[in-house]
């Protein structure tokens, strides 16, 4: 992308650290990667901080505090190419469950003095606040997709990410469909591939942590799943989970709520 080693910055917002850890978990590739790029800002890995601007910015986490709301704008300004890393950054993540409730009530459940805290009512994806150039979904991300994204940028090409649902990964793995064969509720048909379909291969349904597949037919899937509910509200909670604030999952869960209200 440039004639010099690209300067890369890794930032953390509201998150669990697991997606940045995926970079450090590239044990076989880490030293090679460190040779190909200039790690200019990555607090989890190094004290060295080189000043911006940066060629690539990688952002983990969602926007959930007034401070983060300001900081993401600064990050955008100092990075030429901005990657939203992981489901917190692309869909708000698990903490975006607060968007469906009164956050103050949640705060009282944890803290004796919610008045000491500074937080926003919502936890929202990066793209709601600034322009994002590439999204890598996953809770956590697949580390090889992160390596592929960086390699693609270095080679001036589009990253080669899967464009199909988790179902195809099950077929490729030879995993018998947990939904059809065992009646286990599974979000796989509506979920973006990338994880390797690890939940079905462990005998359980997909819980949608890689976010909705862009061709998901939730109108068809939701009633099918609901008919399989093992506890009341199971399908609703499956949709309103790690990727619950992603528009299509959000809408499908809202539809179930409306139906119940009627």
């Amino acid at each position, binding site marked *: 992308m440039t004639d010099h080693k690209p300067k890369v910055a890794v930032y953390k917002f509201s998150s669990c650290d697991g*997606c940045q850890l995926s970079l450090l978990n590239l044990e076989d590739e*880490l030293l090679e990667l460190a040779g190909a790029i200039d*790690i200019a800002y990555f607090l989890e890995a190094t*004290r060295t901080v080189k000043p911006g601007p940066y060629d690539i910015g990688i952002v983990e986490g969602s926007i959930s505090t007034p401070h983060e709301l300001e900081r993401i704008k600064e990050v955008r300004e100092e990075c030429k190419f901005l990657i939203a890393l992981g489901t917190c950054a692309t869909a708000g993540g698990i903490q975006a469950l607060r968007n469906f*409730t009164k956050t103050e009530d949640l705060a009282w459940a944890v803290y004796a003095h919610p008045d000491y805290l500074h937080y926003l009512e919502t936890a929202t994806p990066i793209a709601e606040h600034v322009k994002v150039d590439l999204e890598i979904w996953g809770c956590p991300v697949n580390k090889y997709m992160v390596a592929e994204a960086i390699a693609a940028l270095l080679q001036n090409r589009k990253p080669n990410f899967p464009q199909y649902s988790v179902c195809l990964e099950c077929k490729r793995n030879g995993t018998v469909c947990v939904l059809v064969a065992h009646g286990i509720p599974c979000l796989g048909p509506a979920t973006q591939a990338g994880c390797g379909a690890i939940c079905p291969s*462990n005998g359980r349904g997909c819980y949608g942590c890689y976010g909705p597949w862009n061709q998901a037919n939730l109108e068809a899937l939701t009633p099918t799943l609901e008919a399989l509910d093992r506890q009341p509200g199971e399908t609703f909670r499956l949709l309103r989970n790690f990727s619950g604030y992603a528009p299509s999952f959000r809408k499908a869960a809202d539809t179930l709520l409306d139906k119940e209200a009627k």
Partner: protein
Amino acid sequence: MNRNIEVGALARVEGEGGLFIGLKDGKAVEVRLDIYEPPRFFEGFLRGRFLQEVPDITARICGICPVAYQMSGATALENALGIEVSPQAYALRRLMYCAEYIESHALHIYLLQAPDLLGQPSALDLAAIAPDVVRDALRLKKIGNQLLKAIGGRSVHPVNVCVGGFYRWPDAKSLQELLPELEWGLEAAKACVLWSATLPYPELEIDYEYVALHHPDEYAVIKGEVWSSKGSQLTVKEYETRYIEEHVRHSNALHSHTAEGGHYLVGPLARLNLNYEQLFPAARQAMHDANIQLPLLNPYKSLIARAVEVAHYYEEAIAIIKAYQPTGTAHLELRLKAGEGSGASEAPRGLLYHRYIIDDKGLVQFAKITPPTAQNLPRIEEDLFALAPQLVTMEHEAATLTAEHLVRAYDPCISCATHFLKLKVEEII
């Protein structure tokens, strides 16, 4: 001499926060670890979720130690239902914990703390001068991640743990295939113990009250009683009668103290000091060879305790895999009923306590989670007071590094504790 020392942000920790040290007349008059890692309210949104979702959701508190959150959560809920997992499932849970200890401790020893002891800003810089050390370190860490993936599908937020056991027995062959690497890892870990004892740690001895799970028959991780070096021995159910959380103004993480008001230490030093007798032989032999004396009371030397634990867990992992012969179903059938249950396990950073109240449909009505770093935060502040007389005599850069290093030696998981570290050392005039 008056001075202001300010470091933009503390590096090589998990999560973000800030540190303020006010020095006056050769002493610290104020120490504050400011946690500005955003609050995420896990205990709030766990309410109304089905109990089987808890291990998946609580894993997301921390990407470095998700297994700990899954184990404490699952155990607490099993206690609420009055069930206990099969011995084979229990052994597999210990194996999963072995894997998490290996990857988390290897990350901390080599990538987070060792650069401080070897005068480097990061392990990547260290790789330029000691490539073999870093290559072996990455291999040691990778084996933990591979083992975790073999059991749980992936190393961060694994998917196989459920209330009642596991969704599916992992394939014995995929575990046995890792044995040659684990054997290499055990030898490398023993060498790491010897190496760890030779590093130039800053001098600091603290008369700690240290607290960890203790079990007479095993190096306590999931089962056991909560033991303190001051003599207190409580069941996990009694934990909250003595260990109390408090919300302080400068922190998005809660702070813990004992009922008597003292601060206490959890983590590798506490475990090793209390549970040396339960270590596997290779780890004990490595300690003997390295002439490591207990109790270890220097917070910087928690690296040594981590190295010993890595050796222990490599040896234990090998033993569990060799004995692994899964039979029957991997998880118990759950009979839902209303109840309350607590569970504790030893996360790599220390004791992690969960308590839940569930209704007769298995929905969570109440959740309480006390992570290790919330228990250690007041202790870190107190250690920094003890370090202050040394800081005053040091050059600016050295003082800053020594204080930062102390915080890092705790391997604080700030993401956990809140469910950013900005360091500011200044002399108050």
